């Protein structure tokens, strides 16, 4: 099945007939089976699915972190498939931001230094107005001089979000951003992500298995067995949960 929503806006990221096969022979695992999807600019999309459905693999392929076996991936007007290391590096620098489940902050740098790290790696100066906006949105102005160890989990993840936002990438990929957080901190982070989409037109693709988290998105794409099986527009936690339940049954039969 192919997701066809959002043709009206230009896609920030697009997968066309993407296959991903690991190993060979008997050990062969097909993680993605011909996935085609578009992720529109200025929207917050969640990718959901049970464990082993291929949702993380899809995100890694979209972000150019993993190569695809067949098919093409585009970010903006850049074809990711076939890019060399230099091209991928440039892509990550200019077009892609990441938010990880384990925050992945450098323990030796302060919050501010962590936030500015992508810009300093690329050798760019931050846009002061945008930087101020980001800092105020994440609400960390008081804590900029602190190190990650001195921050709570929610605060650390907000630093990670600010780090992804500050370079204004084409698209931010978030990998279970609330997986390591309690529900209150999780809600803060999700609110903040949703706001950055609504107020600043940021594009976010988030992988999650939490229906509540998915409910913050504008659209949810469901994966099972390496294929897109369903999608919801303007989801709520309940509709997401229902779809998940429907998906679980055939998936179990299949396995």
């Amino acid at each position: 099945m192919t997701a066809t929503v959002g043709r009206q806006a230009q896609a920030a990221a697009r997968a066309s007939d993407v296959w991903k096969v690991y190993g060979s022979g008997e050990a062969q695992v097909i993680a993605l089976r011909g996935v085609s999807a578009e992720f529109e600019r200025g929207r917050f999309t969640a990718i959901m699915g049970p464990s082993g459905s291929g949702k993380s693999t899809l995100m890694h392929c979209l972000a150019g972190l993993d190569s695809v076996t067949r098919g093409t991936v585009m970010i903006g007007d850049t074809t990711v498939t076939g890019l060399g290391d230099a091209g991928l590096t440039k892509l990550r620098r200019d077009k892609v931001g990441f938010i990880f489940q384990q925050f992945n902050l450098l323990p030796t740098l302060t919050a501010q230094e962590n936030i500015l790290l992508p810009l300093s790696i690329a050798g760019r100066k931050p846009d002061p107005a945008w930087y101020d906006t980001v800092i105020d949105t994440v609400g960390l102005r008081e804590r900029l001089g602190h190190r990650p160890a001195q921050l709570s989990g929610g605060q650390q993840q907000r630093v990670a979000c600010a780090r992804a936002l500050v370079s204004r990438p084409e698209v931010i990929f978030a990998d279970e951003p609330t997986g390591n957080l309690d529900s209150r901190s999780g809600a803060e982070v999700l609110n903040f992500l949703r706001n950055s989409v609504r107020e600043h037109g940021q594009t976010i693709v988030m992988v999650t298995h939490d229906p509540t988290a998915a409910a913050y998105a504008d659209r949810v794409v469901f994966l099972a067995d390496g294929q897109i099986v369903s999608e919801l527009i303007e989801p709520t936690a309940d509709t997401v949960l229902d779809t998940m339940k429907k998906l679980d049954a055939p998936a179990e039969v299949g396995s």
Partner: protein
Amino acid sequence: MFRATMKSLLARKLRLLLSGLAVVLGVMFVSGAFVLTDTLGRSFDAVFSDAYSEVDVNVAAKPKVALSEVEGEQVAAPVPASVVDRVKAVPGVTDVRGVVAADGARLIGSNGKVVTSFGPPQLGENWLGESELLKLREGRAPQADDEIVVNVALAEAAKVKVGDRVGVLTLAPKKEFTLVGVFGYSGGRDSVGGVNEVAFTTPVAQQLMLGKPDVFSNVTAQAAGGTTPEALRDEVARALGADYEVKTGKQLADDASASLKEGLSFFNKILLGFAAVALLVGTFLILNTFSIIVAQRTRELALMRAIGASGRQVIGSVVLEAVAVGLIASVLGLAAGIGVGALLAYLFGKLAGGLTLAGLGVPPAAVIGAFAVGLVITVVAALLPALRASRIPPIAAMQDVATPDRPLTKVTVGGSVVTAIGAGLLFLGLGGHAGDNTLATILGGVLFAFIGVALLTPLISRPVVALLGTIFAWSVPGKLGRLNSGRNPRRTAITAAALMVGIALVTGVTVILDSAKGSISALAEDTIKAELVISGAQAGPRPASFDPAVLEKAAAIPGVQLVDGEYGDMATMNGERTWVAASSNVAALERIFGAKANAGDISRLNPDQMLLSSDTAKSRNLSVGSTVTVQLSRGEARTYTVSGIYESSQLTNPVVLPPQAATDFAIPQPIQGFVQLAPGTSVASVQPQVERLLADSPEVSVADRAAFIKQQTSQLDTPLRMIQILLALAIVIAVLGIINTLALSVLERTRELGLLRAIGLRRAQTMRMITVEAVVISIFGALLGVVVGTGLGAAVVRALKDEGITDLVLPWSQMVTFLVLAAIIGVVAAVLPAIRAARINVLGAIAHD
């Protein structure tokens, strides 16, 4: 990026300090060597320019046999007394003096022993009166033929005072003199550059130091007002003709100082050699540290890549870290090197008998060398880990990627190739196929062999570590420790390889020297047929010698069958330099040394005949009946006819001259004596009688054959000890490496250690586990070192077969000692990491991210 690198560096101060320490030690040796030679060099410059400050022009004869510093003492040809008058006739000169000053005046101290010197000459001179430079401190000038004065330092060393009767050994056997005065130098100095001086009246000095009356060592003159030394030099040279070397005082000072510096540069090279070993071991250590750091930072580096860092930036950040470590280590090493250089210079000055040190000098070479070596080594060692870091995929930031155990094929193939190159170079070098580059080829071969074996170590480590580990596998902690040491073969291997280098070098050197000792003593046991041997330990450049009259007296002792005194000298034979010997009793060649005649008669020698060894005859293309011109250290060149050729062996000299020739040797006294007893004569009855004959020859003693052989071979013990002590440094660095690896491993396994503790592993058991790991690694390293060292040693011994090292002697007890030592090293290295592991907070470790 720069800031992130620096911050991460600061966060890991301790581990980088440990790896940096190896560089510090290497750099310390490099800069220390330069500081030492510079300081000593300038000190000697000052000494010589001072010593020659009262000489404007010096006249000397060309030496009969020109020798370099390492070949022995060069004997200056004497200048006839008439030259003094000829120089006086040159216009523009004043204060012309005939000077006697020759090495070899050995004062016998109040304890009956000869005062020895470790390098500076022991000059016998004629007393020329006081000057600006030289003043009598006590007593008066020598006036009678049995009166002498000495310099203060010598009087103190000999513990003699004005008025004492003292014995002096010169070209002549011991003579007694009355010490009538002691003298010192301006500025309160007791000697010039540690030189010992005995001043006689002029005729006595001429006879005893130069061997004949009315000659001088050299003639000095001052330029009268208005004449420059250079102008006067040219004037004097013109007056004397080409037979004499005329130089200004400044030239003399420069020459003397240059030849001394040649000796110092040898010293410099030895220190640099040890620096190279320390740095090689240090390279392994740094490589390992950076590899572990990169492994631990996988996630961090992957994150950098994920947020846009290029592979090159990641390499840059690791290399930048290496540059910082290298810089800090170089600065510390340079500071330590200046300290060590100063300390060694001070000790050298003391040893050389009070050399006044010029100010401590830090030559540019020391600074440049320190930074070049420190930086380059660190960066080169970090390059491989940096490359590996750049290959970390950004996706590693998202997953718990278990670093897959990469196959060892590549490393093994590389290791085999490098080892083969090393073996090839060694074969070329040792086989004598490398010509002038033999030493460089051999050193390159050793270096390649080490690196090659280090690359092969991961492969070897699996079975060997498993085997070693089973020894400790009787307890749970032992088993865990064993498994841990086998779990990262590369890391274990590099840590062990660092230890291997030091132990392999020590083992190799020991094998070579032990084999040399074994071969020499076996040969001596088999061939020397003398029950008693007269000889003395050589202190300084001059061999010990004794009164030739002893030989005749010993021959008269009842029961003595044959006595032979051996003389030796460097001579030129048909224009080429060679070592020549003279034997007081030529018959000894066959009857004591078991020489076999190849041609002619080797049992007798007329005063105009000579014997050659078969090797010499072959290389010089000479045969019985050939005539050969020989120039000895003294006297005129003489022509000899070859009357016999004997088979070469390790114990025979290349050339044997008749005993009459010995009077023209640099040391016209025997340096060894061999006494053969009639069958049935008791050694114990003859030995004390010979001993009494040697009462006036305190430099030598008489020993039975076994003691003599032992004494001869024990000369090799001193260099062996020195090398072992210096190489111990390489082993110390390797221990740092083990500590470092373990500390990092403990840090890496915090969660795992916490888990083990949580399920009931006691503190003591945790510590035992770490200790077993350390012991397994270090014994593995020592085992490798012993094997590689034995291989290298055996290869060298084989190559030296033709030089007479025929027996391969393996130092078994030493090897066992190394293994035991390695076990102890392991235990010691484990102490800190083990304590750290035992202190891990269980809860915190499990919750550890």
